[in-house]
């Protein structure tokens, strides 16, 4: 997939780039409004990561311009401002999602994939990972064609790990993905362990291989080794 990262903070841009290209994606960069303007006029992207505060302009103006020239690229807004008004404005202008800084790269990637899925594979929302088959629209999980019943949170967790397959996901990222950031349960990081154990058990009970790997107490990885 091909992405455009419009972000003025260089180190953040680099990290995002690194994370995405490691998965075989291609990333273009724009540090300013002007650069972003030029790039999205010429090229087509699967998804544009758009920071709203750029040194020479407003990210929302780029979004307006994109819609004006009738481009259908997916847009994920990345903003430091957690304001409902701005979120609503961004989404009503045609952005697909809104992510608030700071975020975890795994979260970012999961969201990007969700956007691309919605935009490109119209109707076809099935994800395959070896013997696992996930229907994101119907929220159904099948192992070797047999349905596995997962709770909503377990389903979200599995989808999150599969979206970031072969990547290590920190416990912090997993907790935030499931409970959001308003839970204020900072002392409950270890708690994600129980949750993953449940998903693991349900999957292996249905004859699935155990793809979850623990990484020394810092996180987990979903990979076929």
């Amino acid at each position: 997939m091909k992405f455009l990262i419009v972000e003025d903070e260089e180190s953040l841009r680099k990290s995002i780039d690194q994370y995405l290209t490691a998965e075989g994606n291609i990333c273009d960069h724009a540090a300013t409004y002007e650069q972003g303007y030029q790039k999205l006029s010429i090229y087509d992207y699967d998804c544009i990561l758009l920071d709203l505060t750029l040194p020479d302009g407003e990210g929302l103006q780029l979004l307006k311009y994109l819609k004006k020239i009738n481009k259908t690229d997916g847009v994920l807004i990345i903003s430091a401002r957690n304001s409902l008004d701005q979120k609503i404005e961004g989404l009503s202008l045609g952005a697909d999602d809104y992510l608030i800084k700071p975020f975890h790269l795994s979260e970012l990637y999961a969201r990007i994939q969700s956007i691309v899925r919605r935009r490109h594979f119209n109707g076809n929302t099935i994800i395959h990972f070896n013997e696992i088959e996930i229907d994101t629209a119907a929220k159904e999980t099948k192992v070797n064609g047999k349905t596995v019943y997962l709770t909503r949170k377990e389903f979200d967790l599995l989808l999150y790990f599969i979206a970031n397959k072969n990547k290590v996901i920190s416990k912090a990222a997993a907790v935030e993905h499931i409970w959001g950031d308003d839970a204020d349960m900072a002392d409950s990081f270890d708690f994600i362990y129980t949750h993953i154990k449940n998903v693991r058990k349900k999957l292996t009970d249905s004859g699935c291989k155990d793809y979850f790997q623990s990484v020394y107490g810092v996180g987990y990885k979903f990979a076929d080794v």
Partner: protein
Amino acid sequence: MKLFSSYNRILSIITLTGLLVIGFLFYQTLGQYLNKQIDDHLFEELLEVEDFTHVKNILPSPDGFDDVIVEYKKIHQVTNKRRLFADTNFYNPKKKHTESARYLKTELNLNGQPYQVMIIASKFERQEQIKSIILIILLPVIILLLILWLVNRILIKRMWLPFRELLSNIKAFNINQEKVFEPIQTNIEEFKELNKAVLDVSLKVKSDYREIKLFTENASHEMMTPLAVINSKLDTMLQSNTLGKEESEILADLYKATSKLTKLNQSLLLLVKIDNNQLQDKEKIDLKALIEEKLNYFQEFIQKRSLQVQTNMSPFSISANRSLMEILINNLLSNAIRHNYDGGSIQITLTKDNLIFSNTSAQSALHPGKIFERFYKDNTSEGTGLGLAILKQVCLRQNYKLSYGYEQGYHQFKINFDGPENEIR
């Protein structure tokens, strides 16, 4: 003591003693003056007695005078010619009772015979006169004083009216509200000055407060991007294949610290947002449903700590901002879970107007005045120390009454929604 009563007390003490002293002196002077008059009269009577005996060669009869009584007493010899005036009591045969009187006693020769003559005059009428005079003079003075006191009272009350208004306006002034201090209308220079001083102070306080809020907001926002960088770098490091046990542990700690810092920042921003009244859109919210939704949301946390949750909720809806109500329930619930011990219990009671969250805890009663302060927390808590402060701020903004109590091992947080603005329209 009020200024007015203090002023009044001094004034009445001075007036009363002044009145007493003046009254006493007045009475004395008047009495002496009257005595002198009576004495003159007695002397005249004596001369008359002398004339009478001289002309008629007989003593006048003791009852021969209109208003005096004359007594004669034969003596051997005139030894003392001095005239003596003094007070006495005598029996008035006409009125048939004893009266105070004044007499003149002297010795003199009448028709060649030595006599002691005593002339007595009643003071009764004169005294009555004195009484009348004093009454006539003192009564108007007292009435005048009373009127003065009354006028004074009304005048002072009226003069202090702007001050009272000013005071109530100062009391009504709230730094958190948009309403600025209301200056009062007055023509009195002192109050005008006070008015202006208070107005200046209030404006300064307001603008300072606004600046602090703005600073907090900007600082917190500016921190978000570096935090995003740290987070992304941690995520990148985590992907390294050469990660050993030690490095992983360091990473885990870094994640925790970063996440805590992020939460802290978000909480501060949230506080500013609530302070600024940025969350105002109201809608009808079914509290019971919201609590049940949140219980479901936190169910894994509850199960993990094997907490017993008892709910006693009757349907209750409220008109409020959804985000704020979610924050409220979130904070109450996560607080009850976090500060509980494994196997403890949580009781949630929702009645009309009242929401009560009670939970067991390893801690004993907390300081009810301090727990809602920002960054107040015990050392074992890993929270931000802002959860209850946010709770308090939300309640303050929505005019809910938030209280804390400790009863039979249960920490109890009670919110009373009973306020005129919270009714569902």
